[in-house]
């Protein structure tokens, strides 16, 4: 008895055990339990379908939804087609993103291309524009009045050129826009793969008389291949639940992917169907992640990070050195700047599609509300529009709170994972913090919408509250924050903490005086990442916002639905501004502290 009591008391005094238990319990409640409830709900009769399921009561067991999705006349249209669309789009945009990303990575890491040192910074610039913002810009740029119900776009207005409808809506633009959005991601993964190859391996091949091409083909690429395969899989997995871009570019054309189909089902109150789709998306994402771990498992045999700073063998581009560099920089600036210019132009015109000077206006930015406000040109400009101002405040508030919470939670989770290495608490927490990665944003939204509509245990009904947005955003951002927290905590030697314990420091003092100051770079990165992605995220919140808790991305979506193009584009530009200012301020605030390295 006393043994048990003393052992328990010891465990309760071990910080990572207590912290780990709390985090595991919280994540089990917020991630694992909802998942099981989704699974269960997909087998339970819903009130809305009682008439269609013979003899059913609310909540009684039924295979109705699974049958309707997988084996009914509806299957082709509501399941097979979206699934096929999802897979083809994901595969094609991933190939395109890989081609651009790997190409850029090779050019910057392994050739003597001019300006190559500027690429790693520049490549993140397009990242400030949300992917669906690029989709909006795409529509504004290419649409033409030859399409039923559409005004002229920028291209037609200025050159008279019209493009066929498939260029503007449907799979083609979705693939292009997603590739533009994700190539930076493949670039980062590929660049780290290329730079981790020990240059002496290539030198050895050279000494054996191999040509540069042969070295690339026989040594460099095979060594980098597992990492590149992993990059492919991870990029592909991101497409499985992608919502914003296919929502803007696909739905007007009745072109559905799994995520938009899920959204459509939720909006038409078909919860059972939506949850079957949700489970399929989660299942597909899990499979890809499993394949990824298989690939990476083999990779370890190859990865050789040599401590020696051997300069890699740089392939000379000869007279293409400067032109290639200019073209690359130009391309990156183009995809960052053109969408913004197009969006801004749209917001400065009275009539959609008429870009002539007499239609120039600042009304959508600074105009006051006019009588009869149901028309878009009578609403106040975004700086005087209470709806937009409220959503801006909500977005900023949400971004800052989520950024702070997720950065600190990520460090705490990283502390538990790194200090408990090898133990079961560490392993379970590592898996749990990663789980939200395989649950796409729109699925998260759908789950939380349904589950938190009623009180659950001690938690009151959260639907319609700002707190629900905070919770879902924090959970969704946790995988990255926990990874980054783990790697920064790993770099803090255990002895630094033990030395403080020897000086009678309690855990709170160790956290605030030793661990947080030492990992502040990681905390900062976690904050920026959490802030930026929360402010940009449409899919996560689209199902959860109410007029009072509305945030900017969801507002854009509703303006687009209402056909208020100038407002939706202006709000998108506003999001980009908030992201830029937020990042800049965070850097400014932290600069004094962070510049001094140890």
């Amino acid at each position, binding site marked *: 008895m006393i043994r048990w009591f*003393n052992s328990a008391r010891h465990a309760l005094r071990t910080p990572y055990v207590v912290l780990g238990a709390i985090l595991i319990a919280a994540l089990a409640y917020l991630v694992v339990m909802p998942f099981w409830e989704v699974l269960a709900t997909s087998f339970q009769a819903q009130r809305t379908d009682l008439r269609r399921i013979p003899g059913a009561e609310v909540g009684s067991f039924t295979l109705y939804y699974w049958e309707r999705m997988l084996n009914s006349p509806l299957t082709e249209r509501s399941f097979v087609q979206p699934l096929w669309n999802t897979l083809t789009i994901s595969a094609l945009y991933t190939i395109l993103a890989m081609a651009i990303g790997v190409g850029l990575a090779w050019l910057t890491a392994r050739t003597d291309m001019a300006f190559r040192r500027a690429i790693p910074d520049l490549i993140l610039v397009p990242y400030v524009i949300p992917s669906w913002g690029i989709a909006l810009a795409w529509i504004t740029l290419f649409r033409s009045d030859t399409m039923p119900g559409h005004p002229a776009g920028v291209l037609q207005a200025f050159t008279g050129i019209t493009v066929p409808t498939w260029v503007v809506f449907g799979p083609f633009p979705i693939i292009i826009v997603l590739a533009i959005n994700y190539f930076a991601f493949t670039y980062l993964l590929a660049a780290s793969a290329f730079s981790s190859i020990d240059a002496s391996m290539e030198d050895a091949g050279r000494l054996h008389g191999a040509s540069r091409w042969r070295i690339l083909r026989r040594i460099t690429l095979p060594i980098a291949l597992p990492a590149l395969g992993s990059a492919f899989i991870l990029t592909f997995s991101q497409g499985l639940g992608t919502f914003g871009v296919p929502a803007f570019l696909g739905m007007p054309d009745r072109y559905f992917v799994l995520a938009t189909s899920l959204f459509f089902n939720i909006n038409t109150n078909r919860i059972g169907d939506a949850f079957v789709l949700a489970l399929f998306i989660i299942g597909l994402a899990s499979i890809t992640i499993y394949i990824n771990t298989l690939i990476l498992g083999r990779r370890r045999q190859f990865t050789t990070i040599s401590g020696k700073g051997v300069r890699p063998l740089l392939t000379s581009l000869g007279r293409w050195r400067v032109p290639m560099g200019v073209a690359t920089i130009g391309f990156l600036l183009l995809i960052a700047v053109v969408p913004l210019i197009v969006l801004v132009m749209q917001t400065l015109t009275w009539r959609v599609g008429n870009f002539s000077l007499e239609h120039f206006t600042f009304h959508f930015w600074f105009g006051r509300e006019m009588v009869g406000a149901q028309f878009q040109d009578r609403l106040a400009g975004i700086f005087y529009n209470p709806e937009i101002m409220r959503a801006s405040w909500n977005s900023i508030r949400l971004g800052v709170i989520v950024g702070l919470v997720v950065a600190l939670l990520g460090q705490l989770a990283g502390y538990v994972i790194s200090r408990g290495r090898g133990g079961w608490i560490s392993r379970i927490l590592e898996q749990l913090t990663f789980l939200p990665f395989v649950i796409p944003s729109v699925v998260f939204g759908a789950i939380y919408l349904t589950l938190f509509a009623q009180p659950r245990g001690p938690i009151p009904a959260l639907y319609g509250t700002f707190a629900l947005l905070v919770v879902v955003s924090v959970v969704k951002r946790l995988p990255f924050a926990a990874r980054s927290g783990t790697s920064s905590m790993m770099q803090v030697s255990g*002895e630094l903490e033990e030395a403080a*314990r*020897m000086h009678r420091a309690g855990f709170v003092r160790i956290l605030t005086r030793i661990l947080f100051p030492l990992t502040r770079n990681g905390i900062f990165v976690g904050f920026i990442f959490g802030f930026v992605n929360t402010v940009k995220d449409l899919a996560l919140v689209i199902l959860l916002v109410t007029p009072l808790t509305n945030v900017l991305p969801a507002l854009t979506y509703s303006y687009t639905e209402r056909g208020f193009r100038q407002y939706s584009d202006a709000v998108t530009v506003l999001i980009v501004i908030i992201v830029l200012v937020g990042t800049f301020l965070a850097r400014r605030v932290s600069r004094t502290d962070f510049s001094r390295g140890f």
Partner: protein
Amino acid sequence: MTVISLSAIEKRFGDVVAVHPIDIDIAKGEFFTLVGPSGCGKTTILRMIAGLERPTSGALTVNGREMFNGRTQRFVGPEQRGLAMVFQSYALWPHMTVAQNVAFGLAGRPRAEITERVGRALELVEIGALERRYPGELSGGQQQRVALARELVTEPDVLLMDEPLSNLDAKLRVDMRAELKSIHRETGVTIVYVTHDQIEALTMATTVVVMREGRIAQRASPSDVYSRPANLFVAEFVGNLPFNRIAARVEADGSIRGHGFTWPAGAVQGAPATGEVVVGIRPEALRFGDGAGLELPVEVISVLPAGSYTVIQAHLAAAGGERLYVQAGDHVELQPFEQVKLRVDPRSVRLFDSTTGDALA
């Protein structure tokens, strides 16, 4: 008076036994050194004393206070033990200045007192001028001194040290040894010191415990560990040059016979009545030439001058015999293949059991 007492303390990591049940008592004011090759369990013992590692079973008291009891699983954490510890990596907090590092353990005291005591501690280790620097701006030796000051500032009665000098270069290490010894004398603090360096153990300690694979191989004063090793393991672990071990046999008449030599009965103390033994001689106990002492004929293999002394490698008796090392003076006129006689004072010869390796007598 016993300050630290370990009784039957054991530590397992899963199935691996890092420390077999062990008894250690450390008296007040001792410079107590745990020495042994890596993986022998010395650091684990130190960390169990500190409270950074939880023993599997046994009992541990510090100043009479029970810190761990395997029966009740009572365990007192490091923050409540009031011990001080210098880490191998120094564990200086890189984001704090020297003064902030040293002041950490004084939190809650009046500002004037903190300033005064930090200043005094830094003076004691002779780095008073560095208090505004960050650890990253200091040399290894200075960092070492800061780590020491950080522990001494709280005026602990026990100071634990985990290989504190192993990251310093050879010259600095010699200086720091002297310094640690004088700090020990000035402050009267009880020091528990872990090292893999036998010279450190011999030069500073008042008591040495040699560890081997989680067990105590010998506990003795430094001079006894050197000249009266309890077994071949200790004999070979302690000393700069390889310990000379010669297979021999005690004959029925009491004489000791080896390859090319026979020593008369009673020449070496501790010899058993009869049987196989190992004759152990330190290289520095052997000398060349005539005079008193027992004789060993050898053939020189090579002569290795090392400045202040010379190391000679030789075969016992002739080529093919056991290889011996001799540490001789700085000037030796010998050539390879030369046949010479070695002499040794019988009091410097130790006999060991040929199967257990334990010292005889």
